[in-house]
């Protein structure tokens, strides 16, 4: 099992490394959002306050950005969740293209266990969004030091536990969506159908999360929905760790738990579906 998994995972990473266009595009997306959207959409509720007191300032920040010092800091934490979900999309598309080129059939013709076939793609497919998530964090932190650009200002000191929770949230979100999209890729045969299915899922999930909207501008019903959204759950862990827990009803561990529950359900359903499709004899 391990030999097969290692060989197939190596193959996935070789493919990844040989497709610089795909890497470039996946880098371009968060970069454009961080540079343009984050700066262009830089809402500042403090501008409307005249001679605000410290209490008024922090009340405004709590209301709009859930304790983040400005929109960009709030937004860049949200971008992490956003990027993780949008960049997992390749994982299933790769399966479909491998099917079209007969490569998937070749692999299925060998005795390599289904778990190795699935696992290798999951590892490679989740590694990419996880790497991108940290790239987004790194860039946003860096931008804070570049004059003329907005950036991510972390206001809390990060404990090892906090860092661990942030990592766990990112990894869980990546694994969950990678499993889901990988399952789509295995079950579907036509690229168009796949992209339609992914978009049908992606857009509502992304836009019912609080990843990009300032919290205070969201209507109450959307705030309620977004609390259960897996992207929000991940982003909550990041924001609470970076900007403090004053406005959050629960500690990060609870949001992580929610994320874990989502992951368990989605991965469970996905594996159930994919097990049939990946039986040794179809």
């Amino acid at each position, binding site marked *: 099992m391990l*030999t*097969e998994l*290692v*060989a*197939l995972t*190596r*193959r996935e990473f*070789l*493919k990844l490394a*040989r*497709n610089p266009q795909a890497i470039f595009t996946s880098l371009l997306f968060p970069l454009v959002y961080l540079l343009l959207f984050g700066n262009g959409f830089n809402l500042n509720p403090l501008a409307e306050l005249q001679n605000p007191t410290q209490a008024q300032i922090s009340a405004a920040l709590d209301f709009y950005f859930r304790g983040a010092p400005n929109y960009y800091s709030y937004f860049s934490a949200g971008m992490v969740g956003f990027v993780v979900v949008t960049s997992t999309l390749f994982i299933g598309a790769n399966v479909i293209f491998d099917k*079209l*080129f*007969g*490569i998937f*059939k*070749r*692999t*299925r*013709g*060998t*005795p*390599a*266990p289904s778990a*190795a076939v699935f696992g290798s793609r999951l590892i490679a497919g989740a590694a990419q969004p996880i790497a991108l998530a940290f790239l987004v964090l790194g860039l946003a932190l860096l931008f804070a030091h570049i004059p003329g650009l907005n950036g991510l200002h972390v206001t809390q000191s990060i404990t090892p536990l906090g860092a661990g929770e942030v990592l766990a949230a990112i990894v869980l979100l990546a694994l969950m969506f990678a499993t889901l999209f990988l399952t789509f890729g295995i079950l579907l045969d036509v690229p168009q159908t796949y992209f339609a299915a992914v978009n049908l899922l992606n857009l509502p999930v992304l836009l019912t999360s609080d990843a990009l909207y300032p919290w205070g501008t969201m209507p109450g019903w959307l705030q309620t929905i977004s609390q259960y959204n897996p992207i929000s759950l991940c982003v909550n862990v990041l924001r609470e760790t970076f900007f403090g827990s004053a406005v959050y009803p629960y500690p990060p561990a609870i949001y992580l738990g929610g994320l874990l529950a989502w992951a368990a359900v989605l991965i469970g359903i996905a594996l159930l579906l994919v097990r049939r499709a990946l039986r*040794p*004899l*179809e």
Partner: protein
Amino acid sequence: MSGEGAIIAEELVKVYGGKVRAVEGVSFTVRPGEIFGFLGPNGAGKTTTVTMLAAGLRPTSGQAIVDGVEVSRDPEEVKRRIGVIFQEGTADGDLTGRENLEVAAGCYGMSRSDGKERATELIDKMQLTDAADRYAKTYSGGMRRRLELAVGLIHRPRVLFLDEPTLGLDPQGRAGFWEFILSLRKETGMTVFVTTHYLDEADGMCERIAIIDHGRIAATGSPAELKDKLGGDVVTIRTSGPTPDVTPVLQAIRGVSSITKKDDTYRVKCMQGETFVPLAVEAASKAGVGVTGVSVKRPSLDEVFLEFTGREYRGEEGPTETDKAVMMGHIRQNLRGRR
């Protein structure tokens, strides 16, 4: 129960989606070490049969035993024992030839170092040494096919399934491919099951063949046996004149099945042309007719094929696997051209 057969198909049936009856009760036995040809027109059910034997598709009913293992009972063990060359290309274009082989070795559980060693050995054998570290997408059609064969052989299979292995190869490429298969069989005693559209290939290389049409076996036997079933050779005899008629004289010779006469020429169907000719010449001259020309024509497998399938090409259906493979070849070519 499998003692005598390397591949045993028993009443294999495959119905796709409850509608398309691709294979309708196919039975045959391939002996160990044999090269067995599976012939049939487009859409006859060749690929479907191969895929069922190679544990890639569950039969609707019937069973297959490959190298002593019942396919539906232990498909993974079957996959360990067989090599498969699929009709459509399956080489991974973004990987080098060597990497293709190493990944395949890993899929069969071979250690990294064993895989590397075996890859180098096969690269040598397939004469891919110069191209081994180039991306497979830069390979010519023939090189790709050799690479795919190498991938199929990486784990030293006991039974090799080849689905139209020489599709799209030039005559030299085909000859080279077969030369390699023959030497491999000699070396390892491997059983080879091959589907092909090239009848001359099947005639020259296969010990026995089965002809499949509309999902049923139309005939099985050695190429010679099948040709004999057509009623043997056709001998054409031209004589010095239309009279006297020597038909009764020729008819009396052993092994003759039918004679048609047109003017001074007789067309004789008989079992063995070479032994018939001297007897015919002698009998004709005894009857006072001189023989001015003789030709003996062995039926080729083409005629056998036509006889048993009734046609050369089935045009009324959608794209077949062959069409798809050719199309994918074009797409690849285009992709390659653009990079």
